[in-house]
Structures are given as C-alpha cells and as structure tokens.
C-alpha cells in the first residue's frame, strides 16, 4: 500500500463500504476483553473463540511460538508466567523483517531478554491494529511498518515494563524508582530479584500508566544496536517449519485450482467437465465468477482435473490487446499535452532560448511481482461464518471483500494472517483477488469443507495486477552555464488509483503514484512542467515494490547524467548543485560516492554510475560498478548509502538494501510481461526471468547515523539501482538505455 492511504478516514471507509456493498462496515467486534480472553489461554490464539471442532483446532496452524498471559496490558504485548514475552504484530511479514522490527521496539522499552521474545500475527481489527499512516485501515505497505509503529510499540513495551515495576515495588515494598530492569529480570539493591514471569500475575493487577515514559535514545538496548536482535523468523524458515498459506492443513480440506480466462477480458462461454470429473480425486468442477474451479482432494488431482477440463472462452474483446501496439499509442500520446501535474510556470514567457537541449523518450514494460509463493488462500465456511488463512497484507480490504463475497456481516468473518512468500505489492490490492476467489470456491461447494485455492506459477504471472507500462518524454533546456533552464516532462501510463476504491486519492485528475519522483522531486527544479496521460486498460494495474519510483527514478537519474554530460560537469557535482533544499539526499549521495571512491581511478574496464532517490521519506544513493564483456553488462559491486532516520535494526536495513538491489537488478536485466493477442506471453521463470546467484553483485551498505524518526526500508533501495547501472553502461561507451529491460538492448548475457 501507499502512504497516500493517509487520506483515508472514517468517512472514507464508510463510503468505501457502501460502494462495495459490504453489509456491516464496522470493524469486527473484538472487544479488548474478548481479545484478552482469546489470547490469554493455552497459547493458541487463532480460532479460539469460534465454534471449532476439537480436532480442527488441533490441526490449525500455530504461530511462531506464542506465550501465555497473564500480563496483557494492551493489544501488542503479553508476558506469560513462563517468562516468555509475546509481541503481537499488526503488520504482514513478507520477508522485509518487520516482525523482528516490531518485536525490537517492544523488547527495548520492556527490557526484555531477546531470547525470550516470541511473535504472533494480529487478527483483522483496524480498531486495534490500524496502520497509523493509513488512518483507520489495517495494512502493510508504503514502507511504513516501523515508521508508524515506532512510538506505538515502544509505548506498549514501556507500559508492560511500568506495570511489572509497579508490581515489584508493591510486592517488595520499595520505591518503584529503585527497581532496575534488564533481560526479563527485575532487581533491587536489597538483593530482591524476580523474573518477569514470576511478576506477571501481580503486574496484571496494576493499572497501566496513563502515559508511559519512553527511553531516551542513549538508553536503547536493542534499537539501533547492530546484530542485537537476530531475526525472529530465521529458525523456522531454515528448518521447514514456517507456516505459509500453502502449508495450512485443516480436516477434510480440499484443494482448488481455477481455469482462469486466458486473456485479459476473455469471457467464459461454456465448459465440459466430463473428463475432468473422471480424474481420481476431483470432487467438483464449478463455475465461479473468476472462471471454472476444479476442486479435488489434493493439488495434483486438481491440476490433472484442470488439464482434462474443456473450456470455451470468448476472446473477441481481449484479442486486440497487444503491448507492441500499446507502446506505439503511448509514444504518440507522449507527444501531446495531458493533465498538468505541476503548477503553471510563473513566468513561462520570460525564459530565454536554451543554449542546449536534451531530449529523451523512455519506455517501461509491464512487470509481474513473481513472488516465490504463488498466490493462495484457504477459505472455510462453517457454522454461519467464514474463516480465511492467507498472506493478508491488507486485512481491512480483504476482510470487507471476503465478507461481501460470502454475503456475511464482517463480524462473522475471521481472517488469519500468515507469513507470506513475498509480496512486493502483489498481496495488497483493492480487489483482494485471491481471497475473494477462495471465498467464491468455498461458497460454490456449499461450505462442505475448507478449501485452499492455489494459483500455479502460470496463473500467478498471467493474472495481471502488473506494474503498468509507462512512457516518459522529457525535454530539458540548459542555459549557457549548463544550468537547467527548462524542463518539460510528459508521462503516459495507467493510473493505479483511478477507477477503483482509491480514486479519491487522485488530485485534479492526477494519480500521485504515476508522477511521484518527478513531482515531487528531490531536485530544486521549479521550472519543471509536467503533464500526464492515464489511459485505461483491461489489465489491472498495481503497485510494485517502490511504486511510481520504479520508473520515475530511472528517468530522473539517467537524465541527470545526460544533463551533466551536456553541461560538461561531473554527475555528482551536477546533482549536488540541485540538492540545496534536500540535505539528506545530498548526504547519502556524498556518502555513497565517498565510500565507493567516486572520481578516483578505478580498475580498467570498470565504470561507476551513480544515482540517488527519495521514496517513502527514505533517502538512498547507490554507486554501481559495472564492467562489460562482449557487449554484456556485469554489475560487480554496488555501494549503497541509506538514510532512514533511526536505524531500528541495522542488519535488517542492510538485508533490505541488498535485497532491493538484487530485485531491481533482475528487473533491469530481464523483467517484462508482453501481452500478445490479449494474453500474457511470459508465464513462468523460464521466460519471466529472475536474477540468479551468479548475477548478484557484491553489496556494501552504509547507514547514515540519524536521530530523525525512522522511515521505511522495504522499497527505497529499489529506485536508484537501475539508473546507477545505466549511467555506468553509458560511461563504458554503451548506449543510453531508454527502454527496459536491458535484454531489449541485447546487453545481458542470457
């Protein structure tokens, strides 16, 4: 999701609910008391307050290691008599490490022993677990997890600590101020000593402080302490026990695959299930709104059944869609004025004719997210209610849409959010496509059994919900001193927000996610004039790790190099001259350049390219060291500098920068979904290629020490990579690449 979600408020949510026809827009009525009841016993949280058969309960997925109560001062932390601290994470873990981050925040203020900290995932309840950046919606995205939780989760930990201290003070009859806490232990100079577990019951009787005192940064024990809080999810992900949606087992559970429309906009005409039903294990073949569902006792039977299914589709409406044709249309549109996304220039007429003009047209393809875990969701209709298990990245949307699909009020719908095998934006969408499809299958079989809907890789890659295609046309005038005098910028590409429930976030016909990175830009470019075309297509558009910045940073940062070259200036100096109003951007740029030895003679045949970008309030600069062999690009090393405010988990930040760099490099090299005859041409990793280990450059990450509020790191490492590499390629005598991916220019070893 995007930080712009913060324009959502109560009224907006009601409007949305009305639009969707959701019967009960109120959040599920989990009161705090019920919540405590649900979470206080037996260490099993999910499904406990539901009428679930005993066997089913035992079979339900567990959590990463839940602790028992009784101290549960708020919705975010519990301390058990077993001395375990459980942190309830409101954000979705898709690899970015926020589970560890949220636990770090609580553990620090609580003075917990990290080895005794456990985590679990919160139920869908925006009253308790809203993303504070999004308003009243619960969801994860926009690199906002730690940013919005920083004070909230620390307060939760501080509250629990205060209650433990108060309990100890009362028990030991000493002033609270004399009690020390460290590593789950309370001590007093008199020699008194108790673990948190021993004091938990007494602490639960204490009144929570009205405003818990938070530590000054100097007293942090985990926050910003490198390697002090290893990832909580490492062990389970290294021994195969981490529970993903694909792994959920429920009694009698069936597996479904759907015969999806082959093209974007194709319509189901008819189907013949005779042979499909003869496949051993196939139980049902049913029409659902998405297509034809084949339900079976296992995955292989479902796949065999779908193979045997005969379906007739009407592709007359979809067949004309073709990315080559689309690109030609976009190029034409880019020569025409669209909707302005900048204020009209104050003295448009006064500008003198530029001494030099640089013009370029850039082309970006559709991108699929291609998470390692293809989309899936388990849905179970029973006892007048619906339960779902999935990587619910945006529970509030998924909750509403699941309720609507099932025809149930929201308080009869319970979501279980599990870790997911990646998202990169895919799982946060305003259609809740995989959740709704699973509910539709569950409904179609009359709630006879729990059912897991599984996308195959081909289903997943061909499903649309792509980062849209974009074309940018840029014309920049330089004055005689090589300074930017004029800047005309036209962007063509689908709006992610328009037409859907988020259209409200558009401003004057402009989707901010289409232009972010150009407007606003970190550079001091008051003369920049931009217009936008937002064509509508039958392919659903979606954000993709760093959203609009995926294309705008490429344009801005390669253009910066072209302008510097035209002005005869060093690319670093040229940028710095325009960054007077953005010291943090200048800071990371200088740090990356310094650590990479920018401007010093490097190895022969190796060139450095540089880029800097701000996204989600985090600043990242990267220097890519690139060589070319037989005309093919090899990225050897990337030096990355990041300023994300307080670095809560330095090693998680490094990991995200490393991952962002590899993810962005794979996209730069290979990623492109072509649509031919209305159908996605790339459907699996053989043609929609991902970066592999031998292509991964060495990565060095430097984190700017900062006391600013923490900002996100899941996405901001992506935008600078591609332009940094492209700038190095140009330096090596290669072309100025203006069409991605690089395979289009035959620059990649395949």
């Amino acid at each position, binding site marked *: 999701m995007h930080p712009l979600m913060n324009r959502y408020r109560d009224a907006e949510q009601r409007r949305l609910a009305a639009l969707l026809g959701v019967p009960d827009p109120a959040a599920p009525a989990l009161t705090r008391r019920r919540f405590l009841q649900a979470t206080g016993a037996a260490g099993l949280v999910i499904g406990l307050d539901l009428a679930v058969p005993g066997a089913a309960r035992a079979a339900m997925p567990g959590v990463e290691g839940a602790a028992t109560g009784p101290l549960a001062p708020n919705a975010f932390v519990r301390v058990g008599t077993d001395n375990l601290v459980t942190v309830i994470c409101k954000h979705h873990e898709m690899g970015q490490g926020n589970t560890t981050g949220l636990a770090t925040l609580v553990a620090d203020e609580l003075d917990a022993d990290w080895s005794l900290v456990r985590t679990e995932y919160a139920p869908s309840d925006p009253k308790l677990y809203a993303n504070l950046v999004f308003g009243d919606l619960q969801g994860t995205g926009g690199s906002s997890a730690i940013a919005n939780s920083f004070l909230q989760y620390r307060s939760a930990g501080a509250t629990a600590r205060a209650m433990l201290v108060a309990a100890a003070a009362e028990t030991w009859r000493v002033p609270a101020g004399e009690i020390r806490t460290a590593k789950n232990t309370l001590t007093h100079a008199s020699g008194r000593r108790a673990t948190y577990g021993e004091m938990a019951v007494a602490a639960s009787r204490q009144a929570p402080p009205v405003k818990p005192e938070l530590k000054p940064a100097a007293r942090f024990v985990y926050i910003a302490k490198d390697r002090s809080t290893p990832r909580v999810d490492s062990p389970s992900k290294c021994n195969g026990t981490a529970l993903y949606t694909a792994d959920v087992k429920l009694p009698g559970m069936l597996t479904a695959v759907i015969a999806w429309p082959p093209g974007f906009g194709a319509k189901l005409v008819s189907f013949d299930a005779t042979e499909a039903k003869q496949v051993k294990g196939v139980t049902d073949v049913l029409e659902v709104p998405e297509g034809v569902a084949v339900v079976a006792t296992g995955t292989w039977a479902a796949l065999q059944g779908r193979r045997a299914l005969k379906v007739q589709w009407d592709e007359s409406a979809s067949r004309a869609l073709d990315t080559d044709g689309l690109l030609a249309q976009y190029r034409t549109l880019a020569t025409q004025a669209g909707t302005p996304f900048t204020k009209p220039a104050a003295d448009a007429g006064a500008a003198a004719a530029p001494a030099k003009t640089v013009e370029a047209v850039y082309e970006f393809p559709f991108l699929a997210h291609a998470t390692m875990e293809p989309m899936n969701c388990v849905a179970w209709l029973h006892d007048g209610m619906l339960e779902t298990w999935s990587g619910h990245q945006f529970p509030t949307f998924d909750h509403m849409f699941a309720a609507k699909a099932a025809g149930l009020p929201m308080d009869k719908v319970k979501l279980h959010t599990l870790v997911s095998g990646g998202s990169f934006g895919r799982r946060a969408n305003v259609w809740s496509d995989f959740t709704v499809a699973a509910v539709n299958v569950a409904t179609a079989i009359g709630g006879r059994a729990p059912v897991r809907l599984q996308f195959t890789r081909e289903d997943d890659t061909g499903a649309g919900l792509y980062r849209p295609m974009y074309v940018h046309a840029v014309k920049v005038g330089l004055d005689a001193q090589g300074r930017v005098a004029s800047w005309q910028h036209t962007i063509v590409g689908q709006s992610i927000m328009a037409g859907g429930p988020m259209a409200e976030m558009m401003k004057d016909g402009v989707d901010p996610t289409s232009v972010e990175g150009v407007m606003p830009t970190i550079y001091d470019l008051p003369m920049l004039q931009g217009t936008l075309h937002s064509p509508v297509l039958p392919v659903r558009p979606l954000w993709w790790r760093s959203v609009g910045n995926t294309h705008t940073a490429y344009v801005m940062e390669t253009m910066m190099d072209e302008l510097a070259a035209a002005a005869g200036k060093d690319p670093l100096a040229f940028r710095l001259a325009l960054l007077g109003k953005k010291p943090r951007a200048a800071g990371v740029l200088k740090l990356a350049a310094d650590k990479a030895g920018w401007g010093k003679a490097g190895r022969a045949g190796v060139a450095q390219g540089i880029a800097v970008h701000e996204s989600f309030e985090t600043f990242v600069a990267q220097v890519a060291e690139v060589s070319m062999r037989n005309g093919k690009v090899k990225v050897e090393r990337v030096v990355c500098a990041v300023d994300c405010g307080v670095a809560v988990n330095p090693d998680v930040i490094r990991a995200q920068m490393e991952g962002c760099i590899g993810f962005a490099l794979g996209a730069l090299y290979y990623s492109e979904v072509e649509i031919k005859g209305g159908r996605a041409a790339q459907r699996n*990793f053989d043609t929609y290629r991902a970066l592999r280990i031998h292509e991964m450059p060495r990565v060095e990450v430097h984190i700017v020490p900062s006391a600013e509020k923490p900002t996100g790191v899941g996405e901001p490492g992506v935008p600078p990579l591609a332009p940094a590499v492209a700038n190095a390629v140009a330096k090596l005598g290669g072309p100025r690449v203006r069409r991605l991916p690089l395979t289009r220019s035959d620059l990649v070893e395949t």
Partner: protein
Amino acid sequence: MSPTVIARRLSMLAATLSTAMAASMAASPVQAEDLRAPEAFSSIGDTAERSRALFVEAGKVLQHPRCLNCHPVGERPSQGNDGHPHSPPVVRGPDDHGAIGLQCATCHQAANFEPSRVPGHPLWHVAPKSMAWQTRSLGEICEQIKDPRRNGGKSLAAIQEHMAHDSLVGWGWHPGGNRDPAPGTQAQLGALVAAWIDTGAACPAR
C-alpha cells in the same frame, strides 16, 4: 544439374546452416523432416562425392537442435528448438553430468516428464568438450567424429554403432514436449552413417 553440383550445393547449404548456427544457433526451428535413404545417393558416381553427400544428409541430424544442444563448445548446453542457452544456467561440471549440487539428474529423470516439460533419459548428460559441435561447420564435425582423439577412442564401426543404436542418441527422435524430433529415424541415420563409412567416410569441406 549434375550430382556433383547438387552435392556441392548441399554442402554449401550445410556450411551456410552451420554458420547461421554459429551466429545464434538457427533462429527458426528446424522442422521435423525425412531423411533420404543411402540409395538416394547412388546416382553420385564419384565415391568420395557420394560419401560427402551421405554425411551432409546425416548432418541434418547431427546439426539438429536435439543433438546440437548438448554438444556445447563451452560449459553450458543450450535448449529448445531455437537453441537458446539452457535455463537454469547449468554447466557441464567435472564429468559432463553437471555441477556438484546441480547435476543433470537434479532435473532430468529417466524419461521425459510431460507435466513439467523436462526431457529425460537414464544417461542424460552433455557431450564431452572434445565432441563439441556447436559453432562448428559440418566439415569440422565430420573430421572430429572420425578422430579417435576427439571421439572417445572410437573406431568408425563403433561410431556407426553409437549413431544407430545408442539410446541417448535415440532420444532425439522422442524428445517429448514441444521439441521438434530429429529428422527421419535413428535407423535411417544408422544406415546413412554406415553408407558413409562404406564409401570411405569422406568429409565435406570445412
């Protein structure tokens, strides 16, 4: 046109073909086609010419993607009717059966597996470097095949036996998936190679 001219033209065609393959492993798929039987060449009076023509005919198989893909010059085989580099990027490894940790048999089983479109055979492996054919002309391949230092120490009779009966060679006519089979049949290839040997095993121009 005299048989000699025909043979020369065929030879030129083969050379052109192999040049194209050298460039990018033939962009368009080679279609399944028939092989001509040795008798079809009996009108070529000159024995050496006939021998060369027979080898050029057999070359339709040898330079077919089904065979060429696993006779790489470098470390990495190719795949598909268009001979694109193998994905994932595997290497021949120490024994031509793949790298340690990523052997051919990691993915290739004893038989073609249609659900995942992965081809298979019990002996699946890459031809040794000495038998590399990719980027080579048919004449070069011919010399290579005859040279015991580069053919695994085989006599011509053993070569014929290999072409006519080896079951991994035979996979080329039963490749599964959407892979085009090699032209003709393995028996026809065996007959052509036998006739080529009988006529003196002459090689086309390099």
